[in-house]
């Protein structure tokens, strides 16, 4: 029952979020601020994680392909498919759920417990729309760029690690990442990214917006935001994969 209560309240909140904004100019400014906060603010972690994970994936692939029947370029193919299909859209989104989601929940939660949300309502402003809509739009806009960057850096990390450690040659790795490449893989990854961006921002904002109490509850909301966003991302990962790849 509790689950249905939250689901219903989540959709009621979303309905309020997508109401017509009071002033587009203000929302546009907020959107740009959020692109900066969500997008540029996450650039560092996305770059670092992608580079190192790409490197590790390549070395692990090479370590597992010991049979002489498996061509060396398969290391590139495995690294590419793992990064493009799963690691970049899903794992990076899970990392962003931790970073961006907790940030959104604690920001809105703090605003709630310090009556800043009430202050917006008293002024006649749709507080949920003002606070949440720019975050959702900004995340949907900027996450695909982060994921494309993550793919590039992951492959770069794999290339550098593979060549430097001598497990694969430069030519074989590049041949591998081009071998039987399906452009739809990118489309699939970007569709997942957009859905995950929406989940991260809306679920985290929901937990922040419904915070009541004090600092302890803000912390709890932040934790819940990360946990629930991650679980829902994993659930939708299965659903979208089934829908798009089967």
């Amino acid at each position, binding site marked *: 029952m509790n689950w249905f209560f939250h689901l219903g309240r989540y959709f009621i909140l979303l309905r309020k979020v997508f109401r017509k904004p*009071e*002033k587009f100019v*203000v929302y546009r400014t907020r959107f740009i601020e959020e692109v900066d906060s969500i997008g540029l603010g996450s650039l560092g972690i996305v770059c670092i994680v992608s580079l190192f994970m790409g490197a590790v994936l390549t070395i692990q692939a090479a370590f597992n392909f010991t049979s002489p029947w498996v061509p060396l370029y398969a290391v590139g193919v495995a690294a590419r498919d793992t990064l493009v299909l799963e690691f970049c859209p899903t794992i990076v989104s899970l990392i962003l759920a931790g970073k961006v989601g907790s940030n959104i929940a604690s920001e809105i939660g*703090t*605003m709630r417990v*310090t*009556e*800043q949300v*009430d*202050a917006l*309502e*008293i*002024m*006649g*402003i749709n507080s949920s729309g003002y606070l949440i809509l720019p975050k959702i739009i900004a995340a949907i806009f900027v996450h695909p760029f982060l994921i494309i960057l993550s793919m590039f850096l992951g492959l770069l990390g794999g290339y550098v690690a593979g060549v430097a450690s001598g497990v694969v040659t430069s030519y074989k790795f590049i041949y591998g990442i081009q071998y039987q490449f399906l452009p739809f893989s990118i489309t699939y990854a970007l569709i997942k990214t957009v859905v995950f961006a929406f989940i991260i921002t809306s679920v985290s904002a929901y937990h922040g917006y419904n915070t009541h109490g004090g600092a302890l509850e803000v912390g709890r909301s932040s934790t819940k935001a990360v946990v629930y966003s991650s679980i829902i991302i994993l659930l939708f990962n299965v659903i979208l994969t089934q829908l798009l790849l089967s």
Partner: protein
Amino acid sequence: MIEVKNINKKFGDRAILSSASVLFEQGKINLIIGESGSGKTTLMKCMVGLENVNKGEVLYDGRNFIAMDDREKKAIRKEIGMLFQGGALFDSLTAEENVTFPMTMFSDMSAEEKRERAQFCLQRVNLPNAGKLHPSELSGGMKKRVGIARAIAMGPRYLFCDEPNSGLDPRTSILIDNLIKEITYELNITTIIITHDMNSAIEIGDNIVFIYNGTIWWRGPKEEILKTENPEINAFVYASEFMKKIKKTFS
């Protein structure tokens, strides 16, 4: 003028307000006093629509706020200014931006006009040089004054203040009290203040409403509250030694 008629509010099975009816006059400072948990803040939240009521009416100059749709409520809210207990200033904005915020959202004023109006409001609360400071750089009293400046920025008809003196030293309390008093008379607005501070009640209140266990226990001019023999009111008003001494002196 704001009239509250038979407001009932429950949280679960617990009744917070029971048939609360009261009239708040225009151009006067109306104080709501009562013990912690008596329902003062809930009454104010019900009046401004931050809490839904189970039953009853809130009339803003005859317009029933409870029966209005969201659009009409928004229009009424533009006539309301509210000072929150902790100031509720937006952390990411400077004091000046906090004051200009409602103008940015609801007016077509140019940036220069907004700045001028914000400066006027900040000067009115004796903070002409605080415009560039963020809330984290302001003291408690300064935050409340910026809160007042923001509340009056759009020229409200109704001003709500939730414990404007809480956490302030006596001198700053008097400063805030006087500021609210001056603004009320200057703009001829309906001001409603929740307070625990009897000094403040005696100092600036025109009418006082005493809430006890979610009901309007007593209402009248401030002079009367000191004379009443009602035991619940006496227990609240003369709780401090200082007030007991005053009573002794006058009797």
